[in-house]
């Protein structure tokens, strides 16, 4: 439909009565802009009393069965749409109910993981379980204090596992990745592994052949002085997650038909939204709901927005006193020129580098390949990347992880990417799909702060978690390559990106 026609439809709709149904042909963006500025134009919410009661899991309404009498919508002109339709478009981030995607993901995980568990030696299973629990236990210690510090942030968490909006949807998104965990992705990385395997780096220092070549140029895996250990040292990670033996991290990709540790770890660590994080998040929500700011608000009648005019012109009631929206990590510009400058600028900024980063000159044969960097990197970027909710951890671990996410986001928004990375790096934990998703952000923040050595270490920590062919693994490899490139190691960056590209193709 032409722009003029849509403009005409918009004009006619705005002339009509508030709440009238807009033309179907109007762009979603246009409608949402109108709804934001003139919410009275929006149709009534299609949410019924039964919809709400069906999700209540505690309190006097917890056991109430839906009744026909109470099933009328808030306004009578809406149909009832119990399942979300929008979440795929936003990568599954929103509030909502139990979705088919979540169920599918759970089923896929069960189908994929079950055989792996059954076939694994019993002792190994026990070790994995013990390791996972140790990892979680380490987080649980901090959970209480985290909750105490973040009543507001916790307020917004879903209080039930099943209804966690983003949780199920992100799990739904992760489902296919789990299912395709072992598909392909084998030979593509064999070459790189072979080339890098020649490195004399002991396995204890590096989680995989990919990372071993970098570890040579870096200091031993110790936390920088003056900061609490922001990342889990490789050796410790291997201890905690014995099933992810370093030598096998990428080797298992070569056995396409064999189940990987990734799945088993996900099963232990996850539990998933359907079985996990409800109680803890619910408890956190109590703090927030009863938080002090509400007491400052006047007990006065509200002004309805539907009375005409725009809420923006003073119809909106008191400003939300705590409506802080932590911004994401600062977005940078100047992409066109940065590759030419990258090595020097990165070195200039990486004052904390414990040892000189390898420079591009160390790989003279790769200089010519710089022209292919953009193309290789572009193919390395996973198109299906999505955030993995901490609720995959379940219970207290989910709360602790979410608290770290909130704190690190805040630090980043305050211009402290190093602090943000330090906090967030504790989230580089099993299950791999979560830890690697978190590691991406940690690597970016460290790189942003100029701490390239730590960025690379964080990347390796994430890579050590598992080798299942997921978008998160590809994304982490991309971030790892970025950190390498910033350190001047163009050749290895290229190789890492090629590996990510191969994984993308195989997925």
């Amino acid at each position, binding site marked *: 439909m032409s722009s003029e026609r849509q*403009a005409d439809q918009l004009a006619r709709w705005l002339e009509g009565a508030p709440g009238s149904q807009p033309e179907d042909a109007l762009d979603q963006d246009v409608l949402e802009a109108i709804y*934001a500025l003139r919410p009275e134009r929006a149709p009534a919410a299609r949410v019924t009393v039964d919809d709400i009661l069906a*999700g209540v899991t505690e309190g006097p309404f917890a056991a109430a069965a839906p009744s026909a009498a109470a099933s009328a919508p808030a306004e009578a002109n809406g149909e009832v749409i119990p399942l979300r339709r929008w979440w795929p478009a936003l990568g599954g981030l929103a509030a909502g109910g139990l979705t088919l995607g979540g169920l599918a993901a759970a089923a896929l995980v069960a189908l994929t993981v079950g055989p792996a568990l059954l076939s694994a030696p019993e002792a190994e299973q026990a070790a994995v379980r013990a390791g996972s629990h140790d990892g979680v236990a380490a987080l649980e210690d901090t959970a209480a204090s985290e909750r105490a510090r973040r009543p507001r942030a916790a307020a917004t968490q879903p209080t039930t596992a099943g209804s966690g909006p983003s949780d199920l949807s992100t799990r739904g998104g992760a489902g296919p990745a789990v299912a395709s965990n072992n598909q392909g992705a084998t030979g593509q990385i064999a070459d790189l592994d072979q080339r890098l395997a020649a490195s004399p780096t002991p396995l204890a220092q590096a989680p995989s052949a990919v990372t071993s070549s970098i570890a040579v140029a870096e200091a031993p895996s110790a936390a920088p002085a003056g900061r609490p250990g922001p990342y889990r040292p490789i050796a410790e990670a291997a201890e905690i997650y014995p099933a992810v033996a370093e030598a096998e991290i990428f080797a298992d990709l070569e056995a396409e038909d064999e189940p990987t540790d990734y799945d088993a770890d996900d099963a232990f660590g996850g539990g998933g939204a359907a079985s996990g994080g409800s109680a803890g998040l619910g408890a956190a929500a109590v703090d927030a709901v009863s938080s002090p700011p509400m007491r400052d608000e006047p007990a006065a009648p509200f002004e309805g927005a539907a009375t005409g005019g725009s809420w923006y012109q003073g119809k909106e009631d008191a400003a939300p*006193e705590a409506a802080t929206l932590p911004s994401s990590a600062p977005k*940078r510009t100047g992409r066109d020129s940065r590759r030419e400058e990258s090595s020097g600028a990165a070195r200039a900024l990486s004052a904390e580098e414990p040892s000189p980063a390898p420079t591009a000159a160390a790989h003279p044969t790769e200089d010519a390949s710089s022209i292919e960097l953009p193309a290789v990197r572009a193919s390395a970027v996973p198109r299906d990347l999505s955030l993995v909710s901490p609720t995959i951890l379940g219970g207290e671990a989910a709360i602790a992880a979410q608290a770290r996410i909130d704190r690190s986001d805040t630090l980043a928004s305050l211009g402290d990417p190093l602090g943000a990375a330090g906090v967030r790096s504790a989230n580089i934990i099993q299950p791999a799909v979560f830890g690697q998703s978190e590691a991406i952000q940690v690597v970016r923040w460290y790189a942003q702060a100029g701490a390239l050595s730590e960025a690379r270490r964080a990347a390796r920590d994430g890579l050590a978690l598992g080798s299942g062919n997921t978008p998160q693994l590809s994304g982490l490899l991309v971030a790892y390559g970025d950190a390498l490139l910033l350190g001047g190691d163009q050749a290895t960056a290229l190789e890492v990106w090629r590996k990510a590209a191969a994984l993308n193709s195989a997925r």
Partner: protein
Amino acid sequence: MITRLRQGDRAAFATLYGWYGDPIFRQAILPRLPNLELAEDCLRDTFRTALEKLDSFHVEDRSIFFWLRRIAINKAIDVHRRSKRDQALSDAVRAQPEPLTQPLPDPSRRLEVQDTRDEVTLSLSRLNDRYAEALRLRLIEDRPREECAEVMGVTLGNFDVILHRAAKAFRKVYPP
């Protein structure tokens, strides 16, 4: 009402929802979360949480509307934060590596506590001047379109097209 709610009285809840469901939806949620589906999910979550946490509401302190509104705003912010974080993650991976020569943002800017009014103003400031003017005149000041066209010195048809494009552009920058 509160007593009946605490006793699990479904009719009382139906009444409460009838009173406040739509105002919460339009006044607290939609301006912050203009996508209908997300807004509906947020509304559902708001009342569900309220029912689960009824004990934490103190009737002598405030109107229940403001309590509900606070929950709704928190939920809407949470949805935004999650979607922003998700976007940031994707952006971070998709962004090309760069020399990091850009200065870090001013921390004070990041500390701003913005309500939706500020956010609208900020978003409008990022638009083409004529787009921003069209939105202000027609949707914020609620002037008739004929008057808007006259103020802007364009024909009625042109104004409609400008407004349409302005709305489309606005959504891309809102929330900021």
